């Protein structure tokens, strides 16, 4: 865990869960694995607070426990899964994706599950239906079956998955967890995907059948029913982050293809990716091979491309230097795959080039791209290829070198590395540079969050005042006051204060949205680095 990642995790934990959880969490990240007693002792917090914080973290899947160093007989040790904490940055993007794919219902389902960490299907459905009904005009109510169908669709496409079951769900007392459960639960995780297909169907059908009956009975009423009636105790669902990530990756590839080539090619690539969504394993380098016949049949109706034209488009995609699509065989009119790892590498490379361009200018970007292409070059060759005057080229190369974006490789002619008799070659390594930039991104997001907290703190007095005034207004309206009284209360906020409030709102919105923008860069770089590690 790098220092920047730890800092960012701490800020995120504090924002979402508060100071106590933040303290426990950051301490656990820094120490690696700890037992409960050691954790309580080192953070100097009371034991029950520590237990509760660990509960919260486990509920959200950020903390895991396992048999300690002394074996199953010894105390259990806890460790933090940092990636899951960093995924908190991406929650808005997950919710937005669910909205665009499955509408408001899907959006609310994902939002609820993200907020609670893990939920049973019945409670999710109930909460979401209530929320939707609350926002609808009077007299209408949300049908439970719609919510259930949205839920099952989310599970079918693997966006939601079951949590690995535990014998004592929700309890974190050391005695209960001391049993040899942990080993068993790791095995259960592997069985989850299969169970998703089987169990959810039964669940879904069971839910639908039972709820259809009940829904008819209370069609227009919003009565509360007990959880225990549902009968799906102990089956909790969580968001499948990996699936969302695959979806984002596909989106990035499709938009790159449409920028580089044209709309139709991107539609073809979208079809190919959609067809191989559920069959391709998560970290594969290529999708499943698809024949041209299958692609032709699966194309959306509106596109109406003739078969030979489709073949031409596929040939163009294969011959493109970016190599998004490759041809692996000739059966069925040609077998085609999407080169996932190659596409990720190209996207990461474009990200690096864009950062250099914006930061140092287009000439430095030219030198950077030149070094990426030609691998190793001498100073003189860099000047010649890039057509940049010698002095400026030297200046730019040294700047890039000081920022560690470019490395120097020495090749000696003599065993003593005498400078006059050594070749000095400039080179760019894509992977280490991507890692460096990723750390920069983490630091940047940390800076943004800190700035936001600072802005809020500075204007605390003003915010509190405006909140009080709103509360007074609301109560006055509820008791039916006259217009004069309302305006009098409103004027308690002066005009400059109002302006200040507005600008504060504007600042905070801007900082929020920029966090999301940096998160896009983080996602691309993270996917690229992960793809090279398999």
């Amino acid at each position, binding site marked *: 865990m790098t220092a920047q990642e730890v800092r960012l995790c701490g800020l995120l934990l504090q924002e979402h869960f508060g100071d106590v959880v933040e303290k426990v969490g950051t301490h656990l990240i820094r120490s690696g694995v700890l037992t409960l007693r050691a954790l309580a002792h080192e953070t100097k917090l009371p034991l029950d607070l520590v237990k509760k914080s660990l509960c919260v973290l486990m509920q959200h899947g950020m903390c895991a426990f396992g048999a300690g160093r002394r074996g199953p007989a010894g105390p259990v040790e806890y460790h933090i899964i940092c990636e899951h904490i960093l995924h908190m940055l991406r929650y808005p993007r997950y919710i937005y994706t669910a909205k665009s794919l499955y509408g408001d219902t899907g959006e609310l389902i994902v939002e609820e599950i993200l907020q609670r960490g893990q939920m049973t299907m019945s409670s999710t459905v109930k909460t979401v239906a209530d929320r939707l009904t609350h926002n609808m005009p009077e007299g209408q109510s949300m049908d439970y079956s719609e919510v259930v169908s949205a839920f099952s669709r989310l599970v079918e496409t693997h966006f939601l998955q079951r949590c690995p079951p535990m014998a004592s769900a929700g309890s974190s007392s050391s005695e209960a967890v001391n049993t040899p459960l942990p080993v068993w639960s790791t095995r259960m995780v592997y069985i989850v995907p299969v169970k998703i297909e089987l169990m959810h169907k039964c669940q879904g059908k069971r839910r639908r059948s039972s709820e259809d009956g009940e829904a008819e009975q209370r069609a227009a009423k919003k009565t509360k029913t007990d959880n225990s009636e549902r009968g799906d105790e102990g089956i909790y669902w969580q968001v499948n982050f990996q699936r969302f990530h695959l979806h984002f990756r596909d989106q990035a590839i499709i*938009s*790159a293809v449409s*920028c*580089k080539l*044209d709309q*139709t*090619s991107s539609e073809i690539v979208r079809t190919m990716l959609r067809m191989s969504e559920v069959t391709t394993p998560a970290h594969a380098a290529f999708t499943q091979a698809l024949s041209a016949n299958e692609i032709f049949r699966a194309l959306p109706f509106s596109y109406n491309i003739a078969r030979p*034209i489709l073949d*031409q*488009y596929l040939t*163009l995609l294969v011959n493109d*230097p*970016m190599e998004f699509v490759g041809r692996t065989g000739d059966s069925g009119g040609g077998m085609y795959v999407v080169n996932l790892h190659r596409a990720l590498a*190209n*996207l990461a490379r*474009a*990200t690096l*080039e*864009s*950062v250099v*361009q*914006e*930061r140092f200018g*287009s000439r430095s*970007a*030219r*030198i950077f*791209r*030149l070094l990426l*292409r030609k691998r190793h070059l001498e100073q003189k060759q860099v000047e010649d*290829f*890039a*057509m*940049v*005057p*010698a002095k400026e080229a030297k200046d730019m190369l040294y700047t890039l070198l000081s920022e560690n974006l470019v490395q120097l490789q020495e090749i000696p002619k003599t065993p003593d590395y005498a400078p006059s008799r050594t070749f000095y070659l400039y080179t760019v390594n894509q992977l280490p540079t991507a890692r460096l*930039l990723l750390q*920069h*991104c983490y*630091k*940047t997001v*940390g*800076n*943004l969050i*800190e*700035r936001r907290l*600072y802005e809020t703190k500075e204007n605390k007095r003003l915010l509190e005042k405006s909140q009080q005034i709103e509360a007074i207004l609301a109560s006055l309206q509820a008791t039916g006051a006259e217009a004069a009284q309302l305006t009098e209360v409103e004027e308690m906020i002066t005009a400059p204060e109002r302006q200040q409030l507005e*600008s504060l709102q*504007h*600042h905070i919105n*801007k*900082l929020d949205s*920029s966090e*999301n*923008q*940096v*998160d*896009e*860069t983080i996602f*691309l770089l993270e996917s690229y680095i992960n793809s090279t590690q398999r």
Partner: protein
Amino acid sequence: MTEVKVKKESTDPVDIENRIKELCLQFPHGITDQVIQNDMPHVEVQQRAMAINRLLSVGQLDLLKNSNGLLYRLKDAQSASKVKGSDNQEKLVYQIIEDAGNKGIWTRDIRYKSNLPLTEINKILKNLESKKLIKAVKSVAASKKKVYMLYNLQPDRSVTGGAWYSDQDFESEFVEVLNQQCFKFLQSKAEAARDSKQSPMVQRNSSFATSHEVWKYICELGISKVDLSMEDIETILNTLIFDGKVEMTIIAAKEGTVGSVDGQMKLYRGVNPIIQPTGLVKIPCGLCPVFDDCHEGGEISPSNCVYMAEWLDF
């Protein structure tokens, strides 16, 4: 009794010299001492040596050394007349410079080859320059270095830098202008291809331009005072590739089609970048020059960052 008079051949020095010169003409590659001896056996070693020395000093004979020994060669009449009046050292230096051809030679190298002290070399070089026999050319690689070459020779490309250098200065604006013109040409070609709405294969093929076409276009534009060759245009197109605006493919072409080199042709076409500027650069932190010094609680921190303050009010 007949008086046998052994005819004594004339040992006139001039005759010896002329005889040597004739021998040289007979053997243009050079004659060894042995050959002269065979031809004129009666001439004594001393006289022979004197004759050869005289010819050398006058500059009509060249002294060369090969694996077998010394060779004498007749010097070219013209060059002989040129250096008439110069002394031996000057002739030596002149010869070294001549041998360097049109790449020129540096003073230190002249010193190594002739083994003369530096002061002598400088004097000789000044002398030769005033006689307009040699000239100094500034090298573009190291601006302080001067290379000497014969007066009437054109300096080689590597010394002056070729088409992109005028008077030892790199012509950045010229390169930039050419860069933009080539890019505009390729871009408009790609646009035309895209708008033609034909089948994708035809569209792609028509958006390509060969390097020959680009060269012709630039020549016809007439923005260049210097004649540019196709290689020059290709270097410009390579810079466009490194700018990420253009991509290149090589296809096999029949020998003899216009613009093909060794049976290949290079095709270029304009492309769009595959992603928009990435999220990190939309934030001041992504471009901040003091990014590494920024910590919470320090002189530079997110809370008091002036760049952020300006950016937020934007």
